[in-house]
């Protein structure tokens, strides 16, 4: 198991990874509350980006509607919690199949009727929009008035119910990000992972190599959707409120994918690095603007746009692959 974990990871890479993990582990005792919240948001985007990367980075299927899985995960867990007193972890067990099934429906319709590329991406947006409008009229979950999770002053952290202080949420999302990182590491080196890469590279050649591309693309969508559902559950319990307009909006889907694109699509570390670069620098920008007394609404979005532009123009592989080569932890090929 450990040997397998180490396969394909250079000694130096492993050392850096452990160092990073150690830094994350002690961070809550060093940083202030504000920075802790920023770190939580960074890890949330790293997690969601990693989940999206399974579909796009591994299998080459561009989803621009991943908000649908975040929203469904959030609504399933929140509704179960509010209406039936079911805790978030059991809620997650319900959210996973719901999201996987939703992914299966979208995937089936697209792949069965050979909707691919840009058209597939548009289809994923369309489904997220259906969900947004649908939930706006879904009275069981309070439609446009939104869902609110009861917030009470807790004297202690209740991990089972996900009620507690930011430090607890921080460790929950840190653990989740670590788990999904390891999961992706294994997926990438598995039989399925290789078939995904083949499909990403050349679908016709993949078929000629005996790969049932329909089946493996379905797996990619379902696994990605199932993993993303946790981001939704976390979102619901961290923010304590849910509105369809917010959680299902296209900008949510775009936010998720900016990290991996800037960090490096298809890499394991790209989503994490991308989340850091984007959210981190955006927060620096915000603080700087506050310090100088400048108030420019939308500055963050403009900043995201500039980052994306710079990366697409200057580092088409994303920030991570060249950085990895410089650090000496990159793949050994030319």
């Amino acid at each position, binding site marked *: 198991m450990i040997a397998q974990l180490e396969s394909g990871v250079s000694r130096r890479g492993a050392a850096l990874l452990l160092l990073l993990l150690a830094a994350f582990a002690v961070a809550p005792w060093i940083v202030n509350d504000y920075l802790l919240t920023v770190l939580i948001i960074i890890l949330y985007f790293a997690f969601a980006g990693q989940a999206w990367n399974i579909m796009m980075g591994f299998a080459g299927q561009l989803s621009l509607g991943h908000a649908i899985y975040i929203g469904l995960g959030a609504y399933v867990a929140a509704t179960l919690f509010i209406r039936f007193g079911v805790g978030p972890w059991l809620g997650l067990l319900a959210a996973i199949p719901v999201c996987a099934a939703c992914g299966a429906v979208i995937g089936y319709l697209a792949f069965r009727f050979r909707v691919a590329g840009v058209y597939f991406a548009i289809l994923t947006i369309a489904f997220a929009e259906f969900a947004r409008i649908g939930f706006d009229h879904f009275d069981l979950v309070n439609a446009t008035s939104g869902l609110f999770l009861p917030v009470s002053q807790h004297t202690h952290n209740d991990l089972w119910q996900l009620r507690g202080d930011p430090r607890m949420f921080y460790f929950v999302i840190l653990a989740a990000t670590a788990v999904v990182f390891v999961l992706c590491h294994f997926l990438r080196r598995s*039989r399925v992972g*290789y078939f995904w890469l083949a499909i990403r*590279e050349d679908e*016709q*050649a993949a*078929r000629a*190599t005996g790969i*049932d*591309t329909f089946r493996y693309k379905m797996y990619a969508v379902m696994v990605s959707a199932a993993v993303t559902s946790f981001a939704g559950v976390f979102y619901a319990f961290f923010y304590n409120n849910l509105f369809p307009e917010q959680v299902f909006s296209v900008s949510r889907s775009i936010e998720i994918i900016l990290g991996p694109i800037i960090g490096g699509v298809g890499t394991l570390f790209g989503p994490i690095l991308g989340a850091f670069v984007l959210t981190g620098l955006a927060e620096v920008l915000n603080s700087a603007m506050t310090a100088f007394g400048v108030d420019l609404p939308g500055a963050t979005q403009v900043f995201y746009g500039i980052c994306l532009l710079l990366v697409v123009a200057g580092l088409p592989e994303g920030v991570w692959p060249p950085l990895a080569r410089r650090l000496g932890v990159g793949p050994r090929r030319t």
Partner: protein
Amino acid sequence: MTALLTLQSVSKRFRGLVAVDAVSFAVPEGEIFAVIGPNGAGKTTLFNLIAGAMVPDEGSIVFAGQPIGGLSADAVCRRGLARTFQIVRPFPALSVEDNVTIGALQRHRDVGGARTLAHKLLEQLELFDKRDRRAATLTLPDRKRLEVARALATGPRLLLLDEVMAGLRATETDRMVAILRALNRDSGLTILLIEHVMRAVMALASHVLVLDHGVTIAAGAPETVVRDPAVVKSYLGAEAV
């Protein structure tokens, strides 16, 4: 001598154009069978019909006793019929080793076993030294051999080669001919090739089928076929004789 692949009056039309017109032939097990003909003769279409990339309008295609006409390309490959593409299509961003490993994963469920098989094939196709290179960085002759290695990795009984010699220099052609002949001799692999390079056809094939405008105009042993007046007229040109 039993036939591994049998085509019975297979036809394919694209609107008005009959690309493949009632073509019948049998590829005997263990032989190297070549399909030749001028550009637009329907060779690649015929290939696509056999490999499952297209569905025939008429006729039957039987492989190892089972009808395969109309099966999807991946199902055909899993039955033991692997192909290369006229315009090479390796997985460009992946390493040479990973390209072949993906093929080998059809036979091995575990990645380790597949990788071992891939190494063996890379040795055989003289690509082992380049195994860590990205496929996109290889030269054309190397990419052609990579495609053959990937196809072989799936464990085929019949290898379909679509103009695998095209664009190769004479020395590269001889190298490929030697590799294919060794494969056929050592493992009894049956090979069906589409080829323009007559030098390779004459060196390899035991049977030749000549197509022109979708119709079979000659078939038989290579020495006989190249002297056939119809073949000379439509394809080889008088000076080839």
